[in-house]
C-alpha cells in the first residue's frame, strides 16, 4: 500500500499532474451525448472540470451555420483531450489524432480502440499497437484500457502518460465493477490512473476516488441524467469526497460493534 500512500501525499494540495500539466479538479468530463451545446457548456462549467474529452468529426457540408463546440466550450479555458472514438485500428487512431493536433495543436490525447458492441470493451491488442505508433509520433497518450494489470503496466512502460481502465462498459452506469483490479493497477502504476467509463452516479465517482484513483472521467452519467447540470455538481462533490476520504484513511472493516459513546461515567 506504500505506493498509494505516497501518491496521495504527493497529490494532496496541488491536485494532480499528467504529462507536466497540473489540474486542481480531479473530475474530467466528456462533452458527448448532451441534448444541446448550451446544456453542455453549463454542466461542464458547474462540474468544475478543467479537462474535457472531445471527438473529431467531419464538418457538416450542408449546414454551415451549425453551432460549434468550441463556441460553447472554450479551448482556452478547458484543456481539450481529443479522443479516437470510432477508430478500430492503430492507423485510424494515428490519422485522427494527427488531424486533432493540426486543428488545435494538442499533443495530449485520449486513445481508445474499442471492440464491437454490445460491450465496446477496449481492444487491447489494437490499443497497444496504436499507443506505440502515437508515442513514436510525439503524442502524450492517456489510454483507455481494460482492467488488466498486465496490459496497464505494459502501456505505462511503453510511455503512456496516464492509464484509464474502465469501471464498467461505456455508458452502462454500472459503477466500479472491478475494485480489486482497479486497486491493483493503481498500486502498480507510477503514472496517474483514472477510472474512465462505467460511472452511473456520484457514489460511483466517490468510490473510484476512494480506491486511490488520481481522477475520474465521466460523460454519460452527467449528460444523460434528468438534470445534467445538477448531476455535474453532484459528480464534482462526489470526486472531492472520495479523494478526501482516500487521503483521510478509512477505518478497517470489522464484524463486531464498537461503541461510539464512552462506556464509563454512566449515571447509576
Amino acid at each position, binding site marked *: 500500500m506504500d505506493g498509494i500512500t505516497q501518491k496521495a501525499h504527493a497529490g494532496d494540495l496541488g491536485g494532480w499532474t499528467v504529462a507536466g500539466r497540473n489540474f486542481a479538479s480531479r473530475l474530467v468530463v*466528456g*462533452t*458527448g*451525448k*448532451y441534448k444541446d*451545446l448550451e446544456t*453542455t457548456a453549463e454542466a461542464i462549467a458547474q462540474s468544475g472540470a478543467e479537462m474535457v*474529452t*472531445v*471527438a*473529431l*468529426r*467531419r*464538418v457538416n*457540408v450542408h449546414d*454551415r*451555420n451549425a453551432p*460549434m*463546440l*468550441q463556441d460553447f466550450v472554450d479551448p482556452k479555458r478547458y484543456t*481539450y483531450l*481529443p*479522443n479516437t*472514438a470510432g477508430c478500430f485500428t492503430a492507423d485510424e487512431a494515428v*490519422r485522427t489524432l*494527427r*488531424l*486533432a493536433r*493540426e*486543428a*488545435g495543436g494538442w499533443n495530449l490525447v485520449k486513445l481508445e480502440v474499442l471492440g464491437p458492441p454490445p460491450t465496446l470493451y477496449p481492444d487491447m491488442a489494437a490499443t497497444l499497437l496504436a499507443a506505440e505508433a502515437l508515442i513514436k509520433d510525439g503524442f502524450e497518450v492517456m489510454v483507455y484500457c481494460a482492467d488488466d494489470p498486465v496490459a496497464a503496466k505494459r502501456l505505462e512502460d511503453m510511455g503512456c502518460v496516464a492509464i484509464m481502465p474502465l469501471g464498467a462498459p*461505456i*455508458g452502462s452506469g454500472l459503477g466500479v465493477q472491478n475494485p480489486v483490479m482497479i486497486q491493483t493497477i493503481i498500486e502498480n502504476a507510477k503514472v496517474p490512473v483514472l477510472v474512465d*467509463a462505467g460511472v452511473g452516479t456520484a457514489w460511483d465517482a466517490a468510490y473510484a476516488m476512494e480506491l486511490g484513483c488520481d481522477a475520474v*472521467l465521466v*460523460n*454519460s452519467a452527467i449528460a444523460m441524467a434528468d438534470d445534467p447540470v445538477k448531476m455535474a455538481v453532484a459528480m464534482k462533490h462526489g470526486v472531492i469526497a472520495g479523494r478526501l476520504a482516500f487521503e483521510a484513511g478509512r477505518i478497517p472493516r470489522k464484524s463486531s460493534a464498537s461503541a461510539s459513546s464512552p462506556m464509563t461515567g454512566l449515571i447509576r
Partner: protein
Amino acid sequence: MSQTIEQITLSVNGESMQVPAGTSLTGLVALMELDTRKLAVERNLEIVPRSQYGATVLQHGDALEIVHFVGGG
C-alpha cells in the same frame, strides 16, 4: 459573350463538389463559409498545415477531409 470558367470536381467529406479550376484551399473554405481557426484539413490523406491553405491549389479529383471538434466522451 460569356467566358466559361473550367470547373473541377472534388470530394469533400465524401461528397462531390464542383469548384472553379485554380481554387485554393483558402478559396474553398471561404466558399464553404468555414472558420479555419477551428478545423483541420486532409488532402489525399495528407494533412495541409493552416499556413499552406493559400498556396494549396486544388486539383480535379482531390479528396478532402475537413474536420472539427464535436462532443465526445
